[in-house]
């Protein structure tokens, strides 16, 4: 009698690319299909514009309406690009909470033959893309209505692209570390991403230079890749004004880029190790199908 082979073949597993593509598509559907495209666009634009408007009014009441000054341009660009920091770092953990507590599908994802970190990163890509549009609209608003001196012909595109993608990579690694941590938090896990977003705003030099902070806090900022990333983005978008920002003035663009590259490699290793550890703890404690709402 012929025996039936029941052992699944490993070739049947979806590859990383397929997992990434499918989870990115799923993330996009979850992000966008709760309403029609127009309302979705309005929702995506209004929040970042109004958050920027808080800073605009703060600047206005203290310094008056000179929006082309170097101080304001640096503040505005830092704030606009910080939207991406929030999205890249927080979205992995929000994806975990959403899948675990709202859709209650995380347990199925974990037993499915796929690489969970790849799924989680793919799941967060949609909201990062939406955030990219938010950044564009915020910058566009600044150029059109505040007459900010961002001239496309003067942008250092090579530096911008290199810095942008390195920054996104390192922030996704940070997101994965945070996501792993979210897996083992029993109460208020959604606050973790928010806390991190608010904390990094202080230490990243996004809206004020690190020199304003007390010296020990400046060290924290200098140990974060985001500070270097934002400095590079400023120098790429508005080269002359960006250089006046009192952060890392003694470092060249190339040196900053190399520091960012080193951080990216370091965080990539950290993300793999730390996520794996949190994953094991979460499985042992039975946190994968936990619902923490009360």
């Amino acid at each position: 009698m012929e025996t039936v082979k029941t052992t699944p073949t490993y070739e049947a597993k979806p590859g990383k690319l397929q997992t990434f593509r499918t989870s990115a598509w799923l993330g996009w559907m979850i992000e966008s299909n709760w309403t029609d495209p127009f309302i979705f666009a309005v929702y995506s634009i209004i929040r970042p514009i109004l958050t920027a408007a808080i800073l605009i009014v703060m600047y206005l009441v203290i310094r008056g309406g000179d929006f082309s000054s170097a101080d304001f341009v640096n503040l505005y660009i830092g704030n606009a690009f910080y939207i991406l920091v929030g999205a890249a770092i927080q979205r992995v953990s929000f994806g975990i909470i959403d899948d675990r507590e709202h859709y209650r599908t995380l347990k199925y994802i974990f037993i499915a033959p796929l690489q969970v970190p790849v799924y989680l990163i793919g799941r967060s890509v949609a909201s990062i893309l939406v955030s990219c549009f938010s950044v564009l609209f915020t910058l566009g608003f600044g150029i059109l209505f505040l007459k900010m001196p961002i001239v496309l012909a003067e942008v250092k595109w090579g530096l911008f692209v290199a810095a942008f993608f390195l920054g996104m990579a390192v922030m996704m690694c940070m997101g994965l570390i945070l996501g792993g941590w979210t897996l083992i938090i029993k109460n208020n896990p959604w606050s973790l991403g928010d806390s991190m977003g608010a904390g990094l705003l202080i230490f990243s030099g996004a809206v004020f230079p690190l020199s304003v902070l007390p010296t020990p806090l400046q060290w924290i900022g200098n140990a974060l890749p985001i500070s270097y990333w934002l400095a590079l983005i400023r120098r790429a978008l508005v080269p002359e004004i960006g250089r006046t920002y009192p952060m890392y003035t003694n470092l060249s663009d190339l040196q900053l880029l190399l520091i960012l590259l080193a951080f990216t490699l370091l965080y990539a290793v950290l993300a793999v190790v730390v996520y794996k550890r949190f994953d094991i703890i979460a499985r042992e404690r039975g946190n994968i199908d936990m619902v923490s709402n009360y």
Partner: protein
Amino acid sequence: MALQTKVTRNSGVRLFLQTVIGRAYPRVIGSQRDPAWLFFDIFLPFLTMVGYVYIYRALKAPEEYIGFVVLGSAMTAYWINILWSMSSQLFWEKENGNLALYVMSPTSLMAILFGMASGGLFSTTIRALVILVLGNLLFHVNYIITSFWALFLVFVLTMVALYGLGMMLSSLFMLFNREAFHFANLLEAPVMLFSGFYFPVSAFNFWVAAAASIIPLTLGMDAIRQLVFPSTAQLGFLPVKLELIILAILSVVFLGGAFFSLRRMERLAIKQGRITDRLG
């Protein structure tokens, strides 16, 4: 011989109060049992406050503005509580399957919302006080209270109107499905901007500030600023007495609105049987 146990069932005011206490309990006691809130509910707004303080420091703003930020950050705790733990709470209850039980129970939704509001107000006040104290310790804000009773009255009326608004919004959130999260998220930034959490609302033109006054925190914070930072009283939007009258009117309007809209939603929920269902 069969034993007969007499079951007493509360009704009227007694049932109402019992419900209020029952729903407030998890917010007052339950949340304190988990020390994680110390980190998330205090540390997070505290970090945001520090960020805004240093923006003003970088802009070399007068010290009173640092006080505005500390005060605004403490009040932020209430707005966040209104948005996420009042307005959207019935939506979360729907998600968890509790809402249908609430509607079926012999008590009123108004009592349940009163319970949520009073419990939320208590725990949020503790958080706001901690933020205020930490902010003062760290940034040495100098308060000069010109009238304690006026300050107390402003705070009480602001909270009554604010939680009334939260109760009214919660009935509207019952109509939402997945958009509830996005809508609550969307409401955060405009209110923080137009209510002047970090700067005097008089920075806007009169009509913008007047429209923003529909949110009780706008006038509440403006009045509190005038009462605790007398040196910046000229930045006030309206006289404190007028703001008190408007806050009193808003309290009545929002509590009345909450009563009627909740009654309507309750009827709809029973009649159509759809509002309490989780649609995914």
